């Protein structure tokens, strides 16, 4: 199994945006190559091109010196390039063996008909599992009985059943516990020893030094460089990822934040998700939540808002201790939450912009239950004006708006409730630069009116720009609290990834 991959001047453009620009690089055979870069740097684009999911706009690449032209994922599979995606793609109700050979189960003749050769399927699966030294999984077990780590292992066994020359692993550890990560790494090393070339995407810096041989860094679609891990330090890699970042253009903010906490959280826990989270949010403050994907930031906000259950801890909102929060109760107490995936849970796509802007404030605008367009119109008009929502007609379906404007509708829906505390969960994800800046300005404007906010973002530079104070979460625990003025981007990023400066 040989699998060197050589890119020459590969470019992918989406309209005016160059997701990947003139990428020229050789990934040597039989090694673990890490791909690093922040969101939008082009690493996913690169992986998708290699997996045949998208076609490059220009340039070509060679597999073992042979030019490769993939028009669909099946072509890539046939050439020996197999991808394990971040999200698991197993069928829970089927057995391990069935999942491994899904769509290509061995058959045998039974008189006039062809039937599945179950003994052979199970034997093949068992052989694969033994070859990879996996003793704790039975081929006949349904996948739904397995832990997440075991399911990830099955994904990789399934990938190996295609006998790949190149294996693409897209953040395989994001859902795994520490022990399961060790197990996965052992598996990766065994594959490398068999000559498989591995491209490994991760956001976890410490993993690189444990598993990777080289690290290739992308930034804004361009190749920054590649480095042998033997020569690398975390500082060098962070420097390569971020370069010289221009410092924030934060508006002149009122200086000190008042002392009285509006929201006090102590010892908040949810088993297996987060643990012993404590913090105070003061009047008019914007508190940033930093951390990597899966650090528990969204989960903490959802639990406080009552959207998810809680196992323990106390919440005091505006002087009122809250037992067993529900979204309804928290809304009454003056808490608003704009969820991270607005398309799925923030908006009712069939309804109009008007109706979406009034969703959370129905009872507030019409306290006696009878509502009307006329009564709601001033509230709708105010949000459209204040948030600069670009809508031809508020009665058009909300789905007619761009991502940035939809996000503003989600925010406007909550500002209409007259909140004291707002949770902004990834408000800038998937919106363009201009809308992003506008959303930050809305947050600052609300803060200066005395509204307190918690702001979750996966972009550490945004947190440094926007927040007054930043709490860093890692593996469901609060690990540090930093002040934006006294912290560099590289420092914050390292705390997020490693838990200490």
């Amino acid at each position, binding site marked *: 199994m040989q699998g060197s991959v050589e890119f020459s001047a590969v470019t992918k453009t989406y309209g005016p945006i160059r997701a990947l620009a003139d990428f020229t690089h050789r990934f040597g055979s039989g090694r673990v190559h890490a791909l690093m870069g922040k969101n939008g740097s082009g690493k996913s684009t690169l992986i998708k091109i290699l997996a045949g999911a998208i076609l490059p706009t220009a340039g070509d690449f060679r597999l073992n010196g042979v030019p490769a032209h993939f028009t669909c994922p099946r072509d890539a599979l046939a050439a020996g390039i197999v991808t394990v995606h971040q999200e698991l793609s197993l069928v829970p109700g089927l057995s391990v063996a069935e999942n491994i050979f899904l769509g290509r189960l061995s058959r045998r003749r039974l008189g006039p008909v062809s039937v599945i050769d179950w003994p052979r399927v199970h034997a093949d699966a068992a052989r694969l599992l033994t070859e990879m030294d996996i003793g704790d999984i039975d081929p006949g077990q349904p996948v739904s009985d397995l832990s997440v780590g075991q399911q990830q292992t099955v994904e990789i066994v399934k990938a190996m059943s295609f006998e790949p020359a190149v294996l693409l692993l897209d953040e395989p550890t994001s859902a795994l516990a520490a022990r399961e990560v060790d197990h996965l790494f052992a598996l990766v090393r065994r594959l490398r020893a068999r000559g498989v070339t591995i491209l490994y995407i991760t956001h976890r810096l410490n993993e690189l030094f444990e598993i990777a041989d080289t690290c290739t860094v992308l930034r804004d679609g361009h190749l920054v460089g590649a480095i042998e891990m033997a020569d690398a330090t975390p500082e060098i890699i962070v420097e390569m990822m971020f370069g010289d970042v221009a410092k924030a253009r934060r508006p002149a903010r009122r200086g000190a934040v008042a002392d009285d906490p509006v929201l006090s959280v102590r010892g908040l826990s949810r088993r297996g998700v987060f643990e012993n989270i404590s913090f105070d949010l003061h009047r008019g403050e914007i508190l940033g939540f930093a951390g990597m994907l899966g650090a528990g930031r969204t989960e903490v906000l959802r639990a406080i808002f009552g959207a998810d259950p809680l196992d323990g801890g106390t919440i005091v909102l505006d002087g009122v201790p809250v037992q067993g929060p529900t979204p*309804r109760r928290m809304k009454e107490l003056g808490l608003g939450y704009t969820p991270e995936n607005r398309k*799925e849970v923030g908006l*009712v796509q069939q309804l109009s912009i008007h109706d979406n802007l009034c969703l959370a404030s129905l009872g507030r605008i*019409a306290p006696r239950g009878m509502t009307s367009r006329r009564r709601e119109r001033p509230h709708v008009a105010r949000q459209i004006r204040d948030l600069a929502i670009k809508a031809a007609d508020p*009665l058009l379906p909300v789905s007619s708006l761009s991502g940035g404007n939809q996000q503003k509708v989600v925010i406007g829906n909550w500002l209409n409730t007259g909140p004291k505390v707002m949770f902004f969960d990834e408000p800038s994800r998937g919106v363009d630069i201009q809308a992003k800046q506008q959303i930050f300005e809305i947050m600052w404007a609300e803060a200066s009116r005395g509204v307190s906010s918690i702001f979750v973002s996966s972009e550490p530079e945004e947190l440094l720009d926007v927040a007054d104070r930043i709490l860093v979460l890692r593996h469901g625990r609060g690990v540090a609290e930093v002040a934006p003025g006294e912290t560099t981007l590289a420092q914050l990023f390292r705390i997020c990834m490693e838990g200490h400066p």
Partner: protein
Amino acid sequence: MAPNGPTGGPTGGPIGLVPNGIAVGPSGRPRRKRRGRGWLTAYAMESILLALVLSLVFLAPGFATWGNLLNVLRTISMLGIIAFGMTAVIICGEIDLSVGAGAALSGCIVAWFSGALAAPLGEVAAVIVGVAAALGAGVLTGMFAGKMRQAFNVPTFIVTLALYTALRGFANLITGGYPLTSFPDWFDFLGAGTLLGIPFPVYVFVLVFAVMHLLMTGTNFGRAVYAVGGNAEAARLSGIDVFFVKTMTLAVTGLLTALSGVLIASQIGSGTGTTATGMELDVIASSIIGGTSLMGGKGRIWGTLLGVLFLGCIANGMTLMNVSEFWQQVVRGGTILGAVLLNQILERARA
């Protein structure tokens, strides 16, 4: 630019004027402000109903007589009263298959009380207790389906399928399998009588239409129903009590089912366990013909009114034209399918 597309311009630019687009009102109701061809798309269902009525006037002998039209109205009233509730249930993403059996049970309960309590309480009190018990049972049945959904996450399709069988069983247990004809004479008035020349059930039908229309378009509760059906999680995160909304729509439908059951029992003069067989399908069909989406989040009480009228006119017209019962069934099936296809096509034309 497509107004229903996932996004506007990448820079969040103005989405522009929508050619032939339909703006959506609070109840998903198209705002009507276009002329020409647009008018026809906006009023498609109304136009088709009008065309149907006009052709029946000429084709079906006796259709356009006062007596026949009142007869049509009386027949559809029983169905329509339930259909307005069913529309709310379907809009919030649920279904109720038990309404036919529920209507039968309701009639049997009234009949039983009218007989059993007539001696100790007197006729009038016995009927009043009976009607109250029937309506109460209807509300409880609806709430039961809602609570099962909430507590055990059993789809209402399943719970109401179980009720579909069980309620009819209860109805027959009450009557012992024979029609209970224990009503006092004046009780006929509710289902068979007329007030100012118009059948009494028609008044109930119009009242229920008005109340349900107002509920769905003019109250917070109605808005919540659309939001829950359109995106339950978004509604929950906006502080709306999703299961309260679902349970209430089911309870309202239970109430309306029982009400309709009382009228039916009065009309036929007995409580019978086998009445209203298959009614649930006609009720659901008229909602769907009226443009209610089984996916939830979309539908109008006005549309259901049109659907009910449409089914009623077509059945009556065919009977007058001596079309065989079997062909009528085929036509009714074609009508349901055609209406859904029409809605799909209109949706695309508006987009």
